[in-house]
């Protein structure tokens, strides 16, 4: 029985890939395809949150920080690409004669930018995670600290207008690594890259979940001390999950910029970081597809319901948080498992934070 189980998830990823990469471009208008691209960016970050929070028990409320690292790396590169030899317009007013800030200079290089999108979050998350996990900062403390960090970074960016564009952010990008962004064909390409990256992230997480590391991570989440008494340092286990989730947030941020065309501190602060979590909670924090689907659903809700009924949407979003967390802590993805579990054996309820289906998936 057990050998075939992983293939269910894998074919799920395959189906997802077909839907995103083949079906969506054919059936959606350019506008909705671009929107879907935006949701994909959130979904990439959400997959990482699912890993850190759902499987690792670390409520990362400051993923905006890592989202920002990727987004601003990308945005700085695209701004320079658009500006060419000139200094970007927003910098001129404050000091027309000053040169480009030093930290902008390397972002002219495509290679450096791509490297920065990967390395910056890894470096920051490793040092931050190392410091926090070694000191056994966890639970609510960890959540609030990461959230405070997101607020601090958003404030910092808002107040450094010449260096980062401030509250207005960076926008008006003309080119994406040499491709004209106004060309619908190129926009589709950007979408496809984002969708493909989402598939890659899902695949990476799928492999992590079925690996021994995945089991160790769940074990660490549920009984950190016990893991320590098995000779592991839980800090290292959590660190890996945290760094991977930071990397994914950064990749999501990087693709967000060419798709949406603007990045501002509002996209990385407290509210944005919490919205990223909303999707994960809604879809199912510990499941493979839940976070991605939840993020896409919340994004879609914002686009469609937010249009037709803006006041109502805020209430719906608020209620979503309350109802889902209260009654469905494992999100919508736990519904089917609940039904089947209830039918098969009423007294063997699925365990509280991970559903039975996933447990089976991880069996040999």
């Amino acid at each position, binding site marked *: 029985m057990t*050998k075939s189980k992983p*293939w269910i998830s894998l074919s799920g990823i395959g189906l997802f*890939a077909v839907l995103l*990469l*083949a079906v969506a471009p054919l059936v959606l*208008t*350019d*506008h*909705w395809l*671009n*929107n879907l691209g*935006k949701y994909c960016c959130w979904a990439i970050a959400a997959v990482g949150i699912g890993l850190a929070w759902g499987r690792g028990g670390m409520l990362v409320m400051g993923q905006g920080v890592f989202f920002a690292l990727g987004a601003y790396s990308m945005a700085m590169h695209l701004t320079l690409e658009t500006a060419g030899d*000139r200094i*970007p*317009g*927003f910098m*001129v*007013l404050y000091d*027309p*004669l000053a040169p480009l800030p030093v930290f902008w200079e390397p972002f002219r290089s495509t290679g450096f930018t791509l490297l920065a999108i990967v390395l910056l979050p890894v470096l920051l998350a490793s040092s931050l995670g190392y410091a926090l996990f070694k000191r056994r900062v966890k639970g609510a403390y960890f959540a609030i600290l990461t959230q405070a960090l997101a607020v601090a970074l958003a*404030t910092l960016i*808002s*107040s450094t*207008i010449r260096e980062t564009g*401030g*509250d*207005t*952010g960076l*926008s*008006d*990008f*003309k*080119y994406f690594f*040499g*491709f*004209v962004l*106004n*060309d*619908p*064909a*190129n926009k*589709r*390409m950007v979408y*496809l*890259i984002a969708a*493909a990256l989402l*598939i890659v992230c899902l*695949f990476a997480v799928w492999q992590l979940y079925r690996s021994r590391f995945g089991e160790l991570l769940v074990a660490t989440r549920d009984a950190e001390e016990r893991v320590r008494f098995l000779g592991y340092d839980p800090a290292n286990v959590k660190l890996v999950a945290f760094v991977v989730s930071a990397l994914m947030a950064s990749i999501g941020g990087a693709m967000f910029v060419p798709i*949406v*065309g*603007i990045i501002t501190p*509002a*996209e990385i602060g407290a509210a944005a970081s919490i919205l990223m979590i909303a999707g994960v909670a809604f879809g199912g924090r510990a499941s493979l597809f839940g976070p991605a689907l939840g993020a896409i659903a919340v994004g879609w809700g*914002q*686009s469609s319901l*937010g*249009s037709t009924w*803006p006041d109502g*949407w*805020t209430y719906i979003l608020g209620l979503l948080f309350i109802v889902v967390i209260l009654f469905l802590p494992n999100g919508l993805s736990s519904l089917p498992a609940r039904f089947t579990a209830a039918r098969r054996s009423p007294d063997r309820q699925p365990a509280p934070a991970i559903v039975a289906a996933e447990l089976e998936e991880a069996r040999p």
Partner: protein
Amino acid sequence: MSTTSKRLRTLTAMGAVGTTVLVLAGCGARAGDETAGSRTSAAPSCVDTSGDTIKLGFLNSLTGGMAISEKTVSNVLHMGADEINAAGGILGKKIAYVQEDGATDWPTFAEKTEKLLTQDCVAAIFGGWTSSSRKAVKPVVEKHNGLFFYPVQYEGLESSPNIYYTGATTNQQIIPAMDFLASRGVKKLFLAGSDYVFPRTANAIIKLYAAKLGIEIVGEEYVPLDKDDWTSQVAKIVAAKPDFIFNTINGSSNVGFIKAYYDAGLTAGTTPIISVSIAEEEAPAMGHEVTGHYASWNYFQSLKTDTNPKFIESWKAYPNSSGVTSDPMEAAYISLYLYKALVEAAGSFDVDAVNAAAKKNTITFDAPEGKVTLDGDNHHISKPGHIGQINSNNQFDIAWASDKFIEPDPYLESYDWFPADIRKQLVDAAG
């Protein structure tokens, strides 16, 4: 299934994904091969002008932090549309508006702009408030060759063939305020602002002009937009002993500023404040502390013009009305009528035709602030400069007025104290 073939499959799948992306990547235009600028690639407009209605888009934050200000603009746009419809519409077509929520989220502004242009096929979009929202909308309307009417005073130094600015640019609000201060013999000025682009740019301009006017800037303080507590900064103002405070604070942070100011023993009698974002809408939330201070706007509810009483009456009678009128509301009201005038001059809803009409004709509108004229080149309008002093009814008594309507000059080209090299770089950077 053996391990190797499992891996093989996975690799094949990944490879297929990669190839698809690369194949599709080959299709689009590269940086070198744009033929006649980027606009050529915009899809033809899908605006439907065959029926007896014309669709317009209203884009305002109805939720989130900026809903505080933008809800009113949205309401006044609805009122304007109703008025125009009652009078027969534009080119005989009734306005059917699509209201969108920007949700105080700038990417949402970009998304909704694209939706309004490509899904709803509106002929023009009205709205936005913060500079961030405008900057988010700008590339999208330019890409799709749409029209965007922006109703709020802003930092200037911008122009776009696809945006019409019906609020003041710096030379219609900041500079008149400085002229007023000079006329009052102010020698020492303190600059207090929220930490974002408008106050920073405004203060950069103020400092340049102050040097020319011989006004000393004795301090400059910024507080994040979402912070109300000005206690520490006001202590510095007290220490600097300015004659006047130039206030570019935005939103509810203004309330905190006024309270801290009052707590510290400063009063309108000793150290008055001149603001550029406190209007009839904002004043009531600040209590009696704000009485006696000044604001620089183009429109005040107290203005005695031919058209103002009707505007105020209609607004007071309108459902959801706040009962008072203010400059951004009036600018939003103007923007609808300006669009009407432009379309009727062009005889068409087509964007290029409208822009051509703006250049060829003299487009005017008898606005509540007076008869405004559109500058067809920079897409701003002429405006009267007014300084109002807040009275105990939270209305403004006119304390100063410019001797004539001020022509819009977003790049401050007619002001010799504005360094030419900065202007050139800004124009260059704007492309």
